[in-house]
């Protein structure tokens, strides 16, 4: 019944429907499923301790359904809560299964009611707290602090935040160090291209690509890998430019390159 007052469009007043829509559209205004449940529970107009969790679960599920119908994106929390409430609802409605482990529906419902009551209590408490007479608004501290004796003690100010931030700064210094590549063992494609443009003219026939690797880049595996990759990429570039052609007799066979440039 409760969900009817919220959602049924048949016999409700315009105001009620507007209110229901406002509730749905304003889903971002709720601070999570618990907040929404608390708001819904107010429609029951009873003490939070005597709330019907079953009705509340129905209301919530209806709310989620309605939100889906209206194609409102609900955050995952809301859907998780919906799944849990659906489970709770079934537990409350079905006769207890003696073989089933775990807490009873009533226990779960009681805990939810407790959570709602506690949240409401904290809301009331914070309202009462903020309504108290407050320093700087209702009552005041000494306006003019006195300094009589001229004894200068230097006190250094530092608060806990300073301390923690300083520590965080030191411990994460590494994270902020600019990333530096190990240039020593990297042969770039530009370098390879440069080198091959020079060499291409001197090699008339098919030549193994590996022979284009610069001196000193053959033995160290790291260097060799980088130089091979760069040389291969550079050779593709040369083929694209129409200056060379590549061939390979079979998979994993040596790749060979020859110049296409007629003038050389």
């Amino acid at each position: 019944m409760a969900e009817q007052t919220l959602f049924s469009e048949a016999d409700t007043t315009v105001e009620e429907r507007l209110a229901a829509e406002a509730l749905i559209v304003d889903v971002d205004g709720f601070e999570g499923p618990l907040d929404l449940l608390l708001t819904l529970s107010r429609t029951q107009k009873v003490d939070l301790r005597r709330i019907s969790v079953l009705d509340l679960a129905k209301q919530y599920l209806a709310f989620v359904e309605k939100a889906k119908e209206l194609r409102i994106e609900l955050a995952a929390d809301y859907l998780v809560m919906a799944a849990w409430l659906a489970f709770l609802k079934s537990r409350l409605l079905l006769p207890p299964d003696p073989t089933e482990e775990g807490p009873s529906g009533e226990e779960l419902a009681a805990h939810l009611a407790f959570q709602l009551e506690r949240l409401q209590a904290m809301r009331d408490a914070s309202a009462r707290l903020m309504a108290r007479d407050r320093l700087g608004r209702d009552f005041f501290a000494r306006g003019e602090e006195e300094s009589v004796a001229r004894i200068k003690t230097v006190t250094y100010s530092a608060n806990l935040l300073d301390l923690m931030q300083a520590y965080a700064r030191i411990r994460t210094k590494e994270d902020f160090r600019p990333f530096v590549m190990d240039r020593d063992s990297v042969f770039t494609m530009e370098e390879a291209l440069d080198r091959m443009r020079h060499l291409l003219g001197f090699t008339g026939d098919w030549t193994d690509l590996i022979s284009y690797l610069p001196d000193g880049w053959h033995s160290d595996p790291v260097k060799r890998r980088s130089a091979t990759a760069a040389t291969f990429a550079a050779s593709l570039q040369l083929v694209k430019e129409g200056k060379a052609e590549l061939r390979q007799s079979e998979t994993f066979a040596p790749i060979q390159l020859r110049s296409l440039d007629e003038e050389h």
Partner: protein
Amino acid sequence: MEDQIMDGHNTSGPQASGRTENDTLFDAPPMAEQERMVEAVLFASAEPVTLRDLEGRMPPGCNPREALEHLRKRYEGRGVRVVRLGDAWAIRTAPDLGFLMQKETTELRKLSRAAIETLAIVAYHQPVTRTEIEEIRGVSVSRGTIDQLMEMDWIRLGRRRMTPGRPVTFVVTPDFLDHFGLESARDLPGLKELRAAGLLESRPPPGAFVMGQGDDGDEEPEEQAELFEE
């Protein structure tokens, strides 16, 4: 007078030790005089002054606690009042005269609903872990909220909880008490009723179906009690 001030700095040995002995031989000033001293110190400072600080400043043998009680009575019903804030004391204007003080009113920082609720939860449930705050509110506590409350010096770190993960806890500060005119956290409005209703308990959810469960569900009630009692 100078001599007292100099106590920290080591002046020549024999003289200094001689004085210390002498000091304990002096009779403490009469209570009326002690009350004047406390009055002067409290008036001069905008910040609450701790009992320990008063003891340190007043001549040896003084009983600032008793002097404070006299002073508090003296100012009852006056334009300013002697208020207690935890271990510290301060003079504050009477709240009913706030209307005279528009000039002094400071713009109170606007706090978000999340911040206000978090503050209330820390005050009423202290010492409380972040997870417990989240469990009570049903949503995660945003990054800035705790930070902001700590910056305002209304909450601070308490003792670590002796549970797995040893999570840090939060408690309210003397500044918080001062701001809201509370003698101690025990004087929070409605605290007794809330406790009697069991609403300050951190009840673990039954069974495996845990909504926003904490890794530190097991609360030691003694710890909290201890904090509020002293």
